């Protein structure tokens, strides 16, 4: 089965539409959403509605820290993020807010674990910045592969049977076999706000039969997404960073 | 899943195992045949 894994959509309609189309073109049969459906971007109602429909049709979704902040205003965030959350909260309907609040923090499916930040303490929203954080996450689960997002930069970590770690920045469109002898942490890049210097939207595909993961990049209409952020009075920096991918 | 045995005459994923060709420090090489493959393996 082919899975398409999306993380950090951040209410970016143009990016998520482009990624969904690209994933379907690649034969995606199942959709995984790793959280942060909202925050930063200008189309939260559309984004939540779309994910609700996907979940209704069998997709798996977990909760991200921005989704969480809609219902839990105590969340500590930087100024721009906080402003976007407050604006978003006013835009969402009660059922949409309830959908986000009720998303689970983790989901397990076969030998795969889905989580927004990392597996050791999913509610602490810690970033996987290198092999030591990746090791902590892998050690906290018995899954063969854990998928996470949160840091908005794609990476692929593995732990050998001797607990040695390797880290790797994936090359787009080159499938990597997730070897059975080691355990893996696949950090999926961000759909709606990439921060690795490449403004193209990011997602990943997994073929469960061959165990091959493919990181994908999709160019999308960044200008429109940025215009909509400005037009809605959100902090300008949130629009500018989309153009630069940082 | 049970670990299949590797010895002459055994079969693994359709490959019939023949004689042992080489015993190295890191790996063992076996001659094998497969009904669908004509190239010597």
């Amino acid at each position: 089965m082919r899975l398409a894994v999306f993380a950090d959509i951040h209410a970016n309609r143009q990016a998520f539409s482009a990624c969904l189309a690209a994933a379907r073109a690649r034969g995606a049969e199942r959709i995984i959403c790793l959280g942060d459906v909202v925050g930063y971007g200008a189309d939260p109602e559309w984004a939540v509605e779309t994910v609700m429909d996907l979940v209704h049709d069998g997709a798996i979704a977990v909760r991200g820290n921005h989704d969480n902040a809609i219902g839990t205003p105590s969340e500590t965030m930087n100024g721009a993020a906080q402003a976007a959350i407050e604006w978003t909260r006013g835009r969402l309907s009660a059922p949409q807010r309830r959908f986000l609040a009720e998303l689970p923090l983790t989901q397990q499916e076969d030998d795969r674990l889905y989580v927004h930040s990392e597996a050791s303490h999913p509610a602490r929203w810690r970033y996987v910045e290198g092999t030591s954080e990746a090791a902590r996450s892998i050690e906290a689960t018995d899954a063969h592969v854990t998928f996470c997002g949160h840091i908005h930069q794609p990476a692929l970590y593995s732990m050998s049977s001797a607990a040695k770690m390797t880290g790797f920045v994936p090359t787009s469109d080159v499938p990597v076999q997730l070897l059975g002898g080691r355990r893996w942490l696949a950090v999926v890049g961000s759909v709606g706000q990439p921060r690795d210097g490449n403004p193209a939207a990011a997602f990943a595909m997994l073929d469960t039969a061959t165990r091959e993961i493919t990181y994908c990049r999709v160019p999308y209409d960044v200008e429109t997404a940025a215009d909509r952020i400005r037009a809605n009075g959100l902090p300008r920096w949130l629009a500018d960073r989309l153009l630069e991918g940082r | 899943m049970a670990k299949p045995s590797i010895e002459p005459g055994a079969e693994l994923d359709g490959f019939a195992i023949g004689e042992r060709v080489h015993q190295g420090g890191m790996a063992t090489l076996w001659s094998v045949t497969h009904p669908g493959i004509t190239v010597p393996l």
Partner: protein
Amino acid sequence: MKIPRISEGEDPAAIVSFEMEQMIVPRLAGPHVPLCFGSGDFDRQPYVVIERIPGKTLYDRLGDLPIPYEEARVIAGKIATALADLHRQNVIHHDIKPSSIMFRDSGEAVLIDFGLSHHNQLPDLLQEEFRLPYGTAPYMAPERLLGVRDDPRSDLFSLGVLLYFFTTGVRPFGESETLRGMKRRLWRDPYPPRKLKPDYPLWLQEIVLRCLEIEPVWRHPTASQLAFELAHPDQVKLTARSERLQRDPLTTVWRRRFNRGLTLPKPKSDVAAQLASGPIVAVAIDTEEGSGPLNECLRATAEQLLATLPSARLACINVLKLGRITIDRTLDEQGNNKHIDRLVALRHWASPLKLDESRLTVHVLEAIDPASAILEFTAVNRVDHIVIGARQNSMMRTFLGSVSAKVAAEAACTVTVVRPPRSAVAQDKSSSTPKAIEA
């Protein structure tokens, strides 16, 4: 079928190197690697099934060393060609040594054992697994001792060790297996082969010592360029390297030893980008009367290409067309040697480019069919880019067929077809219509 020895579990390297083979070997293609027919993963029984290459590895020749220079040149050329093909597939072998090399009945070198290899687009499981560099000590490039695993020129160093060993019978850096002994090669150069064998050809010493340069940047830019030099020993640009009889003076050695920090290699390279910066460009030059304007355009195009590619090399080729039944092919009516005249003309064409001699070669091919000769030359020499002029005179083209059209249609690499600006051919009305669609 290759099955890793893991039951004893003594050596974690056996597992990791098997995992690397498992990832890399199924992706490789072409005559220079064994074909892969299947693999199994560690959760059941790990294995890879590869094509059986008949015959023995080069290790079998160790009793015959030293072997004749010409034989060594041919063998090393085949290995360099195989490496070029491997590097093009984003893989650095990292364990080039006699026991990793076999030959097909058709002649091509086949590289085996990819357990230490690096794939530029896949996770490098060996990068962080072991603090010490893993490999075969006598053949390991100096930068490997500093942890660099992503420079394809490391394989050129190993091939240089092999070529030195096969032609002198002596390993250039001995057999020391200790890290301390291996690290000497970071500052200590080997004895020049000519010190060991006074009859050692200059061109061969030039090639061997260039492969063995401590800094990768001083080696051949790509395996293709090394293969090119091995295929054309008469055109190897000889430098001071070729005649040396002594190693570097101790002052140089000490400076290297205690100033390492200054020459540390850059942290991350991109194999594909590096290969792309050192292409072999072939330009086909017509030396006949009246080809002046076209040749000037060809030179301008070559200049533009070379300006952006400091490691590129230029091969100027000219075809001396033979009549189907002509036997005399060296002397013209005046008794001049046509072959040498053409070589002189090619060098003259190239001189305004002011290329370093090490980047320029000239070749006169003798053939009945010029297009086929150009295609064969570029295939054998793994040329990356052909620059060729389109003949403007349609009468000529009708009689002779278009060389550029055939080359552009059948070449395996990029072809640039150059045409003089319209003003230069305005007089030639008959050529105006078909020109645009040619090639």
